[in-house]
């Protein structure tokens, strides 16, 4: 059917040019927000605040890199928030017992990856829709973390290197920001320049095509789940270090922030489409808004409303743009 009326190459219509691509909208939004806030509150540009924002961005971005890949393969993981808390608890417990930050970090990341693996197996083997499957594992983890430990696991080891994971600096740059930057760049390169990245797109764009082309589709989806899980492990360590405790109550709503940022960045829920640059911008937009509402001393309830509106508005604009392209 399509072939008979196949559309010609995109024509750059006026509307299309005006709305531009999604990322330009995000950049513009970011600039407007930053300028607006800084006019009202000059301290917005203080190095302390910028570092504060960067650190918040880092936490979300680390997981968002994995989530972007996962959404590109047309799957989603809602359990990342619950897993984040569990990772912190496990890591702190292991460090307390072994007195080794390395082993604790390894345990935390391995735990996160294991959660990802379980999610991936439920989705690929049992064929459960990932939205439902990860709501299920979210419940299991939320309950499980309290069965594991009702109280926050305290720092009994007092190892300075543990504190550095979240609060340390290299030169003027906080360590979490460096970690996030490394993960972001690596993810970007993988997604953009490697066969693995291309295969992830292929699986999300058309799983059967990918399989007929000889790709290990199950393995690729598992990879995206495990990677996302492992990155939750990294973020969980940073959060644990920042809070200096393994908090079972942490991470509520974290999954929604991450997914909102990724979608805001133009990654499609239906797979096969998305960019990490978009994700980066999406994280920045959400976190700058979050920070702005605090420094402006506005009612913090707006921290719920504004992202909701921004998300719907951004997607609305994206749809307008696509329609303009198709016209």
């Amino acid at each position, binding site marked *: *059917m*399509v*072939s*008979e*009326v*196949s*559309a*010609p*190459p*995109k*024509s750059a219509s006026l509307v299309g040019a005006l709305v531009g691509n999604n990322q330009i909208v995000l950049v513009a939004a970011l600039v407007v927000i930053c300028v607006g806030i800084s006019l009202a509150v000059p301290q917005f540009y203080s190095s302390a605040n910028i570092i504060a924002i960067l650190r918040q961005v880092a936490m979300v971005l680390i997981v968002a890199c994995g989530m972007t890949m996962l959404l590109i393969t047309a799957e989603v993981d809602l359990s990342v928030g619950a897993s984040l808390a569990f990772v912190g608890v496990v890591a702190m417990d292991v460090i307390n017992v072994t007195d080794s930050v390395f082993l604790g970090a390894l345990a935390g990341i391995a735990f996160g990856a294991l959660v990802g693996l379980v999610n991936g197996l439920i989705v690929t083997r049992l064929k459960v829709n990932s939205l439902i499957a990860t709501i299920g594992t979210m419940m299991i983890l939320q309950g499980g973390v309290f069965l594991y430990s009702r109280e926050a696991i305290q720092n009994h080891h007092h190892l300075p290197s543990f504190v550095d994971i979240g609060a340390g600096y290299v030169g003027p740059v906080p360590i979490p920001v460096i970690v996030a930057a490394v993960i972001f760049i690596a993810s970007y390169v993988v997604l953009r*320049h*490697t*066969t*693995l990245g*291309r*295969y992830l*797109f*292929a699986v999300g*764009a*058309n799983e*059967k*095509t*990918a*399989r*007929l*082309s*000889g*790709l*290990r589709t199950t393995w690729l989806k598992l990879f995206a789940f495990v990677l996302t899980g492992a990155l939750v492990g990294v973020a969980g360590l940073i959060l644990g270090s920042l809070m200096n405790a393994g908090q079972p109550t942490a991470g509520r709503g974290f999954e929604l922030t991450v997914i909102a940022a990724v979608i805001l960045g133009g990654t499609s829920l239906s797979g*096969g*489409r998305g960019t990490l640059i978009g994700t980066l911008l999406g994280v920045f937009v959400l976190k700058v808004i979050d920070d702005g509402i605090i420094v402006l001393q506005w009612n913090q309830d707006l921290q719920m409303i504004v992202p909701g509106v921004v998300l719907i508005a951004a997607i609305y604009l994206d749809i307008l743009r696509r329609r303009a392209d*198709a*016209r």
Partner: protein
Amino acid sequence: MPAEAATAAVAETAAPLPLEMTGIGKHFPGVIALDNVDLSLEAGKVHALMGENGAGKSTLIKILAGVYGKDTGTIRIAGRETSIASPGDALRQGIKVVFQEIALISEFTVAENIFLEQYPTGRSGSINWKKIRQDARALFERIGFDVDTNARTGALPISQQQMVEIARALAHEARIVVMDEPTSSLTPAEVALLFTVIRRLTALGIAVIYVSHKLDEVFEIADTVTVLRDGRHISTRPIGEHTHDTLIQDMIGRQIDDLFPRSRGQASGKVALSVKGVATEKLRDVTFDVYAGEVLGFFGLMGAGRTELAKAIVGFDPIDKGTIEIGGRPLHPHDTRTAVSLGIGLLTEDRKGEGLMLDLPVVYNLSLAALGSFARGGFIDETAEREAAQGYVDRFRIRTPSLFQEIKNLSGGNQQKVLLARWLLRGLSVIVVDEPTRGIDVGAKQEIFALIDQLAADGHAIVMMTSEMPELLGLSDRVMVMGEGRITGSFSRDEATQEKILNAAIV
């Protein structure tokens, strides 16, 4: 008799014509799909609408069905000028279109699907299920189809679903019935039945538009033929004034002397693919060899198991029994990854569902299977990738504005060439092609045929699944016929005739 019908169409008649479309124009971005097209129907006659893919047939019937709006022109139904705003509107005005793609809700029963558009309701507005079941049964009895009206529609074979679609037209007391390639998945017996039904429709004074590219059928059933080409109206003539040749000439605007070029010589004696005793849920004990440099054609009616066989031998679907060897090496483990690495792959019949990554650019689609060969340490050498892709775009004359065009914007023929190039870039030795020309226009078909011939000449082994007899006879070196999951006949190129093949196909 057909000649008289045509004269009658020209002459003034007392009753207004059921449908007159005049000066219909429709354009899509960058494409003029229809340009000043006329079409009028007579009550009780079958009007064939012909043309290559892309000629505008589908656009015209979609305008009639209310799926698209027209840009210019007028539509008169029973003499009154009207507009058709939506599919529901078309139905209310007595137009029922039976689309080529089955338009049934597979979770519903057959009976419910029959009355989908107009549920009979009681005074309270409740659906009268009893009446639906009774009327559906009566309807099928009247037209002589044997279908379980309480069955879940999705559980029926495709051919029966098509029959349900046609029965639907009757249930709605439509005055105009449009059939878009209705026989593409029917057996000869079912086609005969369909024609009986069409004659019953016309006897009731219903006007029928019959869209088809099968000349034999058109000569058998149509009273009048309208040919479209490139969105323009070419001719409307009584069928009696046409011969096969004139009709083809009208359709493609030139003569195709040699639709099936043959440049290759004898196949080598080297076995490229050996299938022994393969059995699955749908296949029983399938055994055959394919030699390098030959085209082995598989024919079978709908449900014979061609696609199932294709998917089994490329490792996509699991097998219960049997062995598959590619170039002497067994396909083990039985998955597509192993299959591709051994050099066998499938050019699917379902381009959209299993072949294309619609939102991704041409180059990504083209290089997908061969990406590893452009990579060093996992990193893609994008220059090499683009150059290789460009090579195929040039060689296959793939019409695309750029390598980065999203593939969904290409025509069916060009998409098919990209998918074929995907496998050649990978360097397969055995290519399984399933319905290679489905949804592709005549011009592009010829190119695809030439490519398949060329591949065989280069030493590839080609396994071709097809339901198109000319394609089968024109391209194959050997023909195998399937029925109910088994191989029911095997013929050399010289032995193979349409009659023998059909006899073998009907189990």
